[in-house]
């Protein structure tokens, strides 16, 4: 795992790095440190990462801008901040976890667990997904999302109005952020269950889900039973 710590106070940065190393052990390949979010942008351009631990002063418009920029990335973002009153808002924008300061090793371990997929879902689901469009960050309402299609390291979001947007996160990472109404029906599809109209079983264990808008999506063979149960 490649980790970027964005924290301007050296003592706290040291603490974060030390604890991450202890928790992740050998899984942690590299730790990059940045004192300011602008510096983080430079580091990100240099090399890809899997997880960003961000100290973010969420007061004011700049804080929210930075938050949107970081959650639009392909990596997960964990906020470590003293502004706990803005935590819910941060979750809405799609952060994986919000660790309030001061923090313990246990609390940090819990957040890191989520990033490695050990505990899949976050406590609070995202309300928006940040997508990069023409070099800008735009927010897509999760309520508008019908399904997401995995496309390698990124995903394609299909919205209720038929539009599609590209999101930098993989389907796995997206699933960790989205509310439980989205089900993984196939290794490449994450679908809003309420949008499914019917399930069809074809020849040779070929299963399909028919959505209300007429789209047909494949269902993984191993997942069919579970999906059928959930639709009842």
């Amino acid at each position: 795992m490649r980790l970027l710590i964005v924290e301007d106070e050296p003592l706290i940065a040291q603490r974060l790095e030390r604890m991450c190393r202890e928790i992740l052990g050998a899984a942690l390949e590299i730790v990059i440190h940045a004192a300011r979010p602008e510096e983080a942008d430079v580091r990100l351009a240099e090399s890809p990462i899997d997880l960003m631990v961000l100290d973010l002063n969420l007061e004011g418009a700049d804080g929210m801008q930075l938050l949107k920029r970081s959650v639009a990335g392909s990596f997960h973002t964990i906020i470590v901040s003293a502004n706990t009153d803005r935590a819910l808002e941060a979750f809405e924008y799609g952060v994986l976890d919000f660790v309030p300061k001061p923090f313990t090793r246990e609390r940090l371990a819990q957040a890191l667990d989520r990033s490695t997929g050990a505990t899949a879902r976050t406590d609070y689901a995202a309300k928006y997904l940040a997508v990069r469009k023409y070099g800008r960050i735009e927010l897509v309402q999760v309520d508008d999302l019908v399904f997401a299609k995995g496309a390698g390291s990124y995903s394609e979001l299909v919205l209720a109005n038929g539009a599609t947007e590209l999101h930098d996160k993989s389907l796995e990472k997206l699933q960790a952020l989205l509310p439980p109404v989205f089900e993984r029906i196939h290794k490449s599809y994450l679908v809003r269950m309420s949008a499914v109209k019917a399930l069809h079983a074809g020849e040779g264990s070929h299963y399909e889900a028919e959505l209300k808008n007429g789209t047909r999506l494949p269902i993984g063979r191993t997942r069919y039973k579970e999906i059928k149960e959930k639709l009842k």
Partner: protein
Amino acid sequence: MCSYDLYWDGRLIVRNGKVGSDPASEISGTLHSDVLIPSELRGPGDHVVAMRVSSFHFNGPRRTFFLNLFLFNGDQVPGFAVTPIIGASFEIGCALVAAITCVVLFFLVDRRRPLVLCGFFSLTAAFYFMLTTERWLGRLGLQSENYDRVYPLYLAREALLTLFAFLVLWTFLEQFGIPGKRWWLAADGVFLAAIWWMRWEDFGYSNEETLWLGRSAFPVLIVAAAWAVWRRRIGARLALGAALIGLVSVQVNGAMLAPSFSIAFALPVLALFASIGLQVQAARRAARAAELTAARMEIELLKKNLQPHFLLNTLTALSEVIEQSPSSAVKLVNDLADEFRSLSRMSAEKLIPIGQELDLCRAHLRVMALRTGKTWLLEAENVDPAALVPPALFLTLIENGFSHQRVAAPAAAFVLRQESSAEGGLSYVFVSPGEMHEDPVRIPGGTGLRYVKARLEESFPGRWSFRSCKTAAGWETVIEIQATA
């Protein structure tokens, strides 16, 4: 006329003074005299009244003869003789009560100059009414002016009225803070003198002069009150209304004992009391608002350092220090305690000596030094440690420095320099080191600066200035405090 002999059907029935052919041989009688006609001379039919008169002792600018004869039943006091006295007595009472009220309000409620002036003009009015009444007392057979005194008393009365007009204007000027007071009063003085000069020949012969004085006094009051209304002075509308009604009253009936004159006198007093009341009320409201501001400032101050960002980040750093170096942790705890102790000590104060403020700032810098891993200094140049400043004034500027500036070097110093400015004022130049963040959305004058400005206004209302700009050394803030006038 000064003296007369009155004959009824050829018989001398009364002598008022001694009729003479020159001032030496004439002895003046009284202004009023009631003559009882002997019963044997009364009766239906025609009667002949003859009078020998002389008026050498009437000491006015021109000699006159006035004669008013009223026939009435001698057993009863006539109504026309009593009515003016009742009215005037009532007015004397009112004017004296107003004067006493002014004294009481002055000593017990608020020591305002308008109250003193109002007391004086009420007293003037009381004397005016007393002199007016005295002249009518003769009607009741109680006392009557000797004719020698008639003219001087007239003059005294009109002088009181003139003084009244002058004092009411002065009171208005004081009450509504109208600028150019001396010019107003000088102009009014010239104006009133001009009326005396123009009416001099007639003074003492009719009630016209009262009317003229009223006519001259009220328009001036109207102009003054209208100015006060325009400048939204408290209670000015009442004063304007009173002056307008006053003018109408003297126009309708300028007689010195007419009820209209009493109204003209009473209304400015009432308007004045009302506007003083309104001003006291406004002042009390302002005082309460100031108290609330002070309370809010105290809370602001405590909130500043109890804000989660500062405290929680410090605690996070502390957790790390505890694990790495327990002795440094104890030092950090002590520094933090120092800062909070200073803050709680000064939180209820409006002003504190700069020495205390510097201690607070340095405690904060020690905490920040541990947190940031840099050395932070605060250099005080030419600073008088006893000079008073609002609490956490410079601490706020330091905090702003930490949130909006970046220092690359391992050590940096904040600089506070005290300078004395012209006219005995003071200025503080505060330099916060480092480059400003290139933060396009940063709002200038955030909560920190609002606190600083509110505190300055609280302690130095209207005589401080705040400006800041970028310099080679960092960010420079200049706070100027002018000396009290």
